[in-house]
Structures are given as C-alpha cells and as structure tokens.
C-alpha cells in the first residue's frame, strides 16, 4: 500500500513539477534567511573582524598633565559604564612600535626624544557602547574636553555604521524570509490543488471503494514532504556554503541547532496547510456530480 501511495505522490509531484521546484526554492531560501536572522549573533561575530568586536579607543594625555590629572582620567575610565578595561601604553614601547611600523621615517624620527610622545591609554569598550553609541560618543567627547586630555581616537562612528547596516540587513532577511515562506506555502497549496484536480477522479473512486481519509491524504502529505526535504537540503547547503566557505563561522553545528527548530515549525505549518487544503478539496469533489462528464 505504501509503495502505491508513494508512487501516487511521485506522480502528483511530477504533474505539478514547476510548482514543486519554485516552492522548494522559496522554502529553502526562506529557511536560510530565517536562520540568518535568529543566528545573527554568530553571523555578526563571523562577519565583523576581531578589532571591531573588541572595539578599542585611544586616549592621549597632554604632555603637561600633572600626575594628579592623569589619575583623575584613570578614575573616570575606571568608573565608566562604557569601559571594559584600559591599559597604559608605555612611551618607550610606543616609540619602538612607531619606528618599526614607519621604518622609512627613521631618519626624521631619530632626533625626536621619546619623552615628547604623549601618555596613551588603550581603552577596550563594552559591547553596550556599540548599541548606544550616542551616549558612548558623548562620554568620549566629554573626556576630550578635560584639559589634561589631548585627544581621543575612537573608531566608534565606523563600527556603529557597520552595526546599523547589519541591523537593517537582519530586518531585511527576516522580512524576506517571511515573504518567501508565504510564497512557498501559497505555491505548495496551488501545487497540491493542481495535483488534486488532476487526480480527483481517482480520489473519488478511492473514496467510493472505502479508502480511509489517510489513504487519500497521504500522497499529498508525501508531496508536501518532498517539497520540504528539497527546501531543507537547499537551505542547509546554502548555510554550509555561507558559513564554511564565505564567512568562516566557528562551527556549522552552532548554526544548525535553531535551523532545525525553525525547519520543524515550517514543516508543521506545511502539514496543517495540506490537511486543510485536502479536506476542503475532498468536500468539493464529494459534492460535485460533474466528475464523470466527458
């Protein structure tokens, strides 16, 4: 019996092949986008380089600042809710690094005394700083206004811009996922309707011969499952390729946990849709007497 029903499901699928291909594609891309949205942290971490994930700012202290003023700046940094940690860059080390990085300027720099290099604090920012960059930027602006602080170098505006774009991209992905999901469901519905219309006489005969509802419904469930499976393969292949080959995720297994939860939900939606579609279509053929009019 199962072989017979599977055979019918394959035949139904082939009879509405274009609908099958389009709905599988839509479902696959929708699953990919939905996974991208829910696993955005992993993707963001993989997409944004390390320097951006652990944003650092440089606070240069004026050369004529007194030790007391330096301590005051240190205290401000210590109590700030935006600062994760900070360390002092030693002048000698900074000088060596400068000479190393700009070796072509060696001749000009040889006469400079390292004492003139300002005292610099390397400040590691908290993640919250990126989420409320307005307040965070304000903090650094205030810091720059302190007379003992010469200047503050912060990549915050740039990082913030990346985050804004990424947030927009996430929202777009969610919207696109929902849109494609609806498209996939509508096309699946139409495909099943087409298959049912093509085999309504068979369904009628099966009904008259005493077939149970499951006997009539199962081929359409199989058809829906084929669509789902192809969609799942497409989305998984997409995620794997994106994660492993393009952005170099830490591990694909981190991504697929929620992917399977979303897939299961999509499958449940598809089953409910098929149940209602087939039930409605069965009622319509039971009522129709024109099935056998040639």
């Amino acid at each position, binding site marked *: *019996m199962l072989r*017979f029903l599977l055979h019918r499901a394959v035949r139904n699928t082939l009879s509405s092949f274009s609908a099958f291909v389009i709905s599988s594609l839509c479902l696959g891309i929708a699953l990919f986008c939905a996974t991208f949205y829910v696993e955005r942290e992993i993707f963001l971490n993989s997409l944004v380089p390390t320097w951006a994930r652990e944003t650092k700012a440089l606070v240069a202290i004026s050369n004529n600042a007194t030790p007391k003023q330096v301590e005051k700046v240190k205290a401000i940094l210590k109590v700030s809710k935006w600062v994760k940690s900070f360390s002092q860059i030693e002048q000698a080390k900074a000088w060596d690094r400068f000479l190393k990085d700009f070796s072509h300027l060696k001749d000009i720099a040889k006469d400079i005394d390292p004492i003139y290099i300002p005292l610099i604090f390397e400040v590691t920012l908290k993640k919250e700083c990126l989420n409320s960059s307005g307040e965070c930027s304000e903090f650094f602006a205030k810091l720059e206004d302190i007379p003992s602080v010469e200047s503050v170098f912060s990549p915050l505006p740039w990082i913030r811009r990346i985050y804004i774009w990424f947030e927009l991209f996430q929202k777009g992905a969610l919207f696109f996922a929902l849109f494609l999901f609806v498209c996939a469901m509508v096309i699946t519905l139409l495909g099943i309707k087409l298959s049912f219309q093509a085999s309504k*006489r*068979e369904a*009628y*005969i*099966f*009904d*008259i*011969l*005493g*077939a*149970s*509802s499951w*006997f009539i419904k199962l081929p359409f469930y199989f058809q829906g499952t084929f669509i789902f499976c192809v969609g799942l393969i497409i989305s998984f292949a997409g995620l794997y390729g994106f994660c492993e080959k393009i952005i170099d995720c830490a591990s694909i297994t981190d991504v697929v946990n929620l992917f399977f939860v979303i897939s299961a939900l999509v499958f449940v939606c598809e089953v409910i849709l098929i149940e209602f579609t087939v039930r409605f279509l069965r009622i319509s053929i*039971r009522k129709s007497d024109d099935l*056998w009019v040639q």
Partner: protein
Amino acid sequence: MEDELLIFCDHLFKKYPGTDWVFKDASLTIFRNQFLFLLGSSGSGKTTFIKIISGQEDYDRGKIIIQNNDFRKLKRKNLHLWRRSLGIVFQDFRLLWKQTVKENIALPLIILGCSKNEIDMRVKAVLKLVQLEDKEDVVCKYLSGGEQQRVAIGRAIVHSPVLLLADEPTGNLDDKHTKNILELFYTLHARGISILIATHDKRLPIAIPDCRTVMIKDKRFIDVIPVPKSRTS
C-alpha cells in the same frame, strides 16, 4: 442465512433542492444473500437509492439500519468500513482509464492493505471469472464497452463484498453481453454475494430464477412478481 437482515429502510424521505420528492415514505428490507432487482423508469430514484445506500447521498427523513447499525451514525465515523463491504458497479463504469485492467481490479485490495501475493492471486481469480485473463495488461480506455463493464464488475467483487450494487449494469450492452453479465451475476450470487441490480429493463428479472423484484412506484418501493411478456399477452 437467507433471512439475515442486511439493510432496512424505514419510511425514507428524499428530495433534491428545487425538485419533487424522490422517495416519500418509502420502506424496503434487504436480506443477506438476496438477488434483488430494483425496477423503475428513468428518474424514478434507482441511482439515488444506490447513492444513499453507499453513503454518497444523504436522505431527509426516515431511518436506515445497516447490519443493525443506524446509518447516520455509521456515516459519521465508519463510512469507509461500510463501503469496503460493498461492491459498486456504476452505469458509466467509473474506471481509471489510464490504468490497466489488473490495476483497476486490484484497487479495492490495495485499499484494504492486502499483500502483493494475495492481490495477485485474487486478481487472477477474478480475471478468470470475468473472462479477461488475456487483457490484464491492457489500458482500460482501449477496451470495448462490454469489457469495461466486466472490469467494473471485477473491481466490485474482487474483495468479496457483502453486497454488490449495480446501477444499470446492462444499460449500454447488447443482448448477448447482457446475457453474459447476468450469468456472471448469477454465478456471484451462487457464491454468497447479495446482489442489488437497479435497472429499467423489466426483462432482466425473468432471466434470474428465485430473484426478488422491487419496483419504485409513486416514490415508494413495491414488491412485484415479474411475468414474462408471452404469458401476459
């Protein structure tokens, strides 16, 4: 065995929207192992009665008892089980035209979940009975009317139904094929299948000995005794 009640229609009323009554206070009792002819002119309600009995059509009032069960209750939950104990031969055959004779006849067995061996065995036996052994792999649309009729009968009896319902089974056939089909029904009846044939042809009951004939007249069922034309004239 003869007196075991199969179907009991009690004061049946049926009306299609916008038409006159098809059945009005009609009562009929069908016993197991009966060979029953349901006679009536076109539009008298023969097909409607078969549709009601097979659960394709509802009725307005009255009561139908099937194997000691109220039909309305049966319809709600186990209609498919009742249909499995029926064999229906439609006037227009209602075969799967693109499938072979064998595939068509095997359908009720597939629905019942029989094994492949059992399906092969039973289909073979039925093909022999309906004399279509050499046509088992022929697609139904290429068969003649008589052959299609026999496929429809084969499909209706392959699962050994309790009751065979045949709606105008000889309506499209010539005298020779009609005789063959009636002989086939008679053979099936001898094997223990109850048979109900709905027809407008008053000659048919005469060909079957010991059959019961019921006529639909004035929207009711009336038991009649068929008399050969030569005796009446």
